[in-house]
């Protein structure tokens, strides 16, 4: 088994850990943590792919940009969580049922 196979095995494990975290928890904060884990797994995919195709410089360059973008997205998500907690008074994902049809 070469090194990249181990990489991708671990990445798959990481992504499924994140998905399990999302499925198993009711708290919105934990959902966000699960999402973060999934997205970190996807980023590791990019860096591993860059190393595999001898393209590591390009991969590093785009990965840094991706991290910056992701921080912005997560910050917005956290702001939404906080505001939701203030307005609706709960961080339970099952309480998000105000609209039906």
């Amino acid at each position, binding site marked *: 088994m070469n090194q990249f196979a181990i990489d991708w095995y671990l990445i798959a494990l990481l992504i499924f850990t994140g998905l399990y975290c999302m499925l198993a928890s009711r708290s919105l904060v934990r959902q966000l943590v699960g999402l973060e884990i999934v997205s970190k797994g996807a980023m590791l995919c990019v860096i591993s792919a860059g190393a595999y195709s001898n393209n590591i410089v390009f991969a590093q360059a785009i990965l840094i940009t991706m991290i910056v973008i992701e921080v912005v997205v997560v910050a917005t998500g956290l702001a*939404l969580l906080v*505001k939701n907690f203030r307005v609706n008074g709960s961080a339970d994902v099952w309480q998000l049922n105000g609209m039906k049809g």
Partner: protein
Amino acid sequence: MDKGLLAYLLIPLFSALVIPFAARGREKLADILANVTLLAGLVNLLWLALRPSVIAGGFEEIPGDGLSLLLVTAIYLVAFCVTFFSAWFVPAGMPNRRAYYSLILVSVAAMTGVVTAADFFTLYIYIEVLAVTSFALISTDDSPKGLEGALKYFLLSFPASALILGGIAVLMMTLGSLSYDNLHIFMSSDVPAGPVVFGAALMMLGFLIKSGVAPFHMWTPDAYQGAYAPVSAHLAGIVTKISGVYAVVRMASLLRFFDGRAQGLSALLMLLGLVSIAVGALAALRQTDLKRMLAFSSISQIGYIILAAGLGTPLALIGAVFHLINHATFKTVLFLNSASVEKATGTTDMDKLGGMEHAMPWTSWTSVIALFSTAGVPPLSGFWSKLLIILALWEAGLKGYAVIALLFSTVTLAYFVMMQRKVFFGKKSDAAAAATEVSAPLLAPAVLMSAAIVALGLLFPYVFSYLKMMAGRIIL
């Protein structure tokens, strides 16, 4: 990056930076700056695309691939209508008025970036910027429903981004580059395409989630219904179309679906399109909230675009792009009208409305034009795009798909006529009794868009020659 259109990205961005500082203490200045920026861009773009010498030359002088220019014009048109509407709709004391206009301008800049990008990485970045501005815009008025819609959008579009990242990784391994041109050249060659198509399929899955196609549509109605009223027009009219559907159409043209190099993906996409048409139309039939019904109708119309993109022949791509433009025009009218109804009566519940026709004649009749265009009544623009899509399906030998698409077009007419009867015709309800027509500036965007619908339908030969030029450039 298409450099000719870079100014249309930078100028709104600059305006968005200026507004929070310049308009402090002078709230009206924010309205004026945002509107002037977008109107100037729109006039500029229309001159670029529609000056007499360009039309006489069969649109051959258009720079770039034509698709970018067309979509940037649509973006500016919808965004201008929304900001013009907002200038009179947003109450004077709203604390975050400057932030609201700034965010709309940033989202315009991001959308321009999406449609002018020439590689998948740039596309990904602009789509994320667009998503961030949409979360903030949906929850503009801090209502519980708006926050709920924004959270649902966030929780579904984040995994979609992870899928796009995975697709980028696979493309980097198999193709060694992320530019559109390389993918296009690769798909024209004879090298077995399996791994590259797998990477493209992962990305496409992400874009399908972001565009709200049937099995992944759960966030769409909530986000549109919960959003602040003018924002839902912005979101439904253009934002989700650019962040999801445009990318799917672009990838369909790059993957050359019509010569069968990515047969499985093409078939899957067409199936999802068809499911989306059916689910959206059937769910729209039983809605009681006006905005929620329009959201389901939006899912159904996206289904037509995805169906045509999945087929991928030049005629189908022409139909898909034209339906994308038409969707922007008629859905903006309908959502802006729902905002007007909400302002006049204070509710969007269709069971409480009724008999608004005499109180709000302009709103009523622009709605009729938009819904006829959606349902495909000739000679309005929606008829031509649906005709092109169904003709393309028939021509490719997919008669079953063509017949089902045609049948659900009549379901579209059914739910819209039902909507019109419940809201505007019939007996006056209590909510409608005190309602009066909204002021002229609030009507102007809907009237402008209705005029665009009629004009695009009546001047179809010119539109078709433009679209034919565009299809030739993006496919070959």
